[in-house]
């Protein structure tokens, strides 16, 4: 049995496509078998929602009178520095940006109450945001100072552009030291007192297409509550890691670089987050539709939490020192049960990514496709596969003290 994306799109337009979520397909495959399920189902919708630090947004704010060139000067949105290194009125704000006067970790652990992720959330929510900018002035752009409220509805373009999202699998973080540590994987209690993890597991887009047979550059997706696209492989793309027989990687592997019009997104799926002792971030909601082109693809979508494994890593020593040691491997079924066993010790688990909201995203995308509002796109280029030889290299430091 094989189908094409255009055949599936025909069915979607006619309202005849059978669309199910990544959770539902597990039951269907169990009851009907892979062959029959692949014939029955046209699209499986996935979802994930969690802090994704390498996210940001760019804007064109419109020209001032007299004209001003923000590029090369300094710009702040609600006191959070924006990257002003383009032409006159284009700005980029990164999710992890902090106000210059934020105390950071001077009084450890810092609070990190407000930053770039929160600015993006406020813009999407339709709140006014204060722009303060200074520039050096030129003959054609004489103005040097600007203080104004801006609102997303008045911006020429507002585009979410995230260079690394939707990590295909991730570490489980623990702490073997004697004191509490504050990490991007949450607050970790001492002496293996708690474990943090962050993946939607069996709902996660790249876990359900683990060898990138359908997801590629140009894939239309659910992004932040609106429609977006896969723009490129995400940074740190690392497809060559060890994998289980079912194709899922046994640690962080592929990532997605995504893009979409911020104006049609929602603050429910773009949430500014504060990671105590670490920094600010942006929780991003992403959902990818997987066309069931053949039985192999269906088999991948039916993978369960019990069949996906993540490495347990000590964030008090191995992780910060970039050492390869792992303390063991656990499945997402174990992680979601609330307790994992590591080195004979039972450790309570806490998630950083929201399973309920990931499911909500998969259901929303299912709904859009079911109503014929969202058509699948044919990827214009494939993502580098497990055999591509693409690797994720560490920095090879070459001391730059002497020239």
């Amino acid at each position, binding site marked *: 049995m094989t189908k094409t994306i255009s055949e599936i799109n025909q069915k979607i337009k006619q309202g005849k496509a059978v669309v199910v979520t990544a959770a539902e397909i597990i039951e269907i495959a169990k009851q009907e078998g892979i062959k029959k399920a692949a014939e029955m189902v046209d699209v499986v919708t996935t979802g994930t929602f969690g802090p994704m630090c390498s996210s940001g947004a760019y804007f064109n704010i419109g020209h001032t009178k007299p004209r001003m060139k923000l590029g090369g000067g300094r710009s702040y949105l609600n006191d959070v520095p924006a990257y002003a290194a383009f032409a006159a009125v284009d700005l980029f704000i990164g999710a992890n940006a902090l106000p210059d006067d934020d105390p950071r970790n001077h009084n450890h652990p810092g609070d990190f109450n407000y930053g770039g992720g929160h600015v993006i959330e406020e813009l999407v929510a339709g709140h006014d945001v204060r722009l303060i900018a200074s520039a050096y002035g030129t003959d054609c752009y004489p103005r040097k100072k600007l203080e104004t409220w801006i609102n997303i509805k008045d911006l020429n373009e507002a585009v979410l552009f995230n260079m690394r999202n939707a990590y295909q699998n991730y570490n489980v973080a623990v702490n073997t030291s004697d004191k509490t540590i504050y990490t991007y994987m949450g607050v970790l209690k001492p002496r293996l007192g708690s474990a943090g993890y962050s993946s939607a597991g069996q709902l996660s887009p790249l876990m359900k297409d683990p060898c990138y047979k359908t997801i590629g550059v140009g894939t239309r997706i659910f992004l932040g509550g609106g429609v977006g696209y896969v723009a490129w492989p995400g940074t740190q793309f690392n497809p060559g890691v060890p994998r289980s027989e079912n194709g899922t990687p046994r640690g962080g592997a592929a990532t997605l670089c995504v893009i979409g019009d911020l104006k049609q997104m929602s603050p429910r799926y773009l949430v500014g987050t504060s990671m105590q002792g670490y920094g600010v971030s942006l929780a991003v909601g992403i959902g990818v539709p997987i066309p069931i082109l053949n039985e192999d693809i269906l088999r991948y979508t039916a993978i369960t939490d019990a069949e996906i494994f993540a490495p347990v890593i000590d964030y008090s020593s191995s992780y910060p020192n970039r050492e390869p040691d792992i303390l063991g491997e656990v499945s997402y079924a174990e992680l979601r*049960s609330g307790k994992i066993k590591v080195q004979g010790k039972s450790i309570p688990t806490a998630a950083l990514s929201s399973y309920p909201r990931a499911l909500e995203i998969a259901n929303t995308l299912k709904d859009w496709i079911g109503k014929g509002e969202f058509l699948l796109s044919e990827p214009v280029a494939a993502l580098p596969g497990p055999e591509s030889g693409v690797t994720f290299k560490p920095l090879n430091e070459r001391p730059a003290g002497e020239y």
Partner: protein
Amino acid sequence: MSEKEKSTKKMVTKKVVLHFPKRRVDEPILFRLIKDYDLEFNILKASITPEAEGLMVVELKGEQASYDLGVQYLLNCGVKIQALSQDVTRNEDRCTSCGACVTVCPAGAFSSEPGTMVVRFNSKKCVACGLCIKACPPRAMELHF
């Protein structure tokens, strides 16, 4: 029970954090609170050591009038009264049900519902320690005084 009935009976149940000054640790303050002010109390957490400031999280129950007099008595004794635990609330609009709070809470007030993974907050178990406030990434937990 309706709001009207509540106000006529005037029974109150409140969770409070009591800070005992050093010099008062060895005095029977809580005994007087029961005997003279007719307040029931339930100790949720206590850390009382001689020669050091004592800390106790208690649930006080009694008539409003007795409660007010009891609180006045505690203040007169030099006991500081702080942060009522039922005033740790969750802003449901901000909570994303991620679960970062689950292992942070020493009292087990948060739990992930098996299957759905929806995170529940049981305010009855809350001891108002405040650890969840800053450990919550979207800052959904709020402390009201």
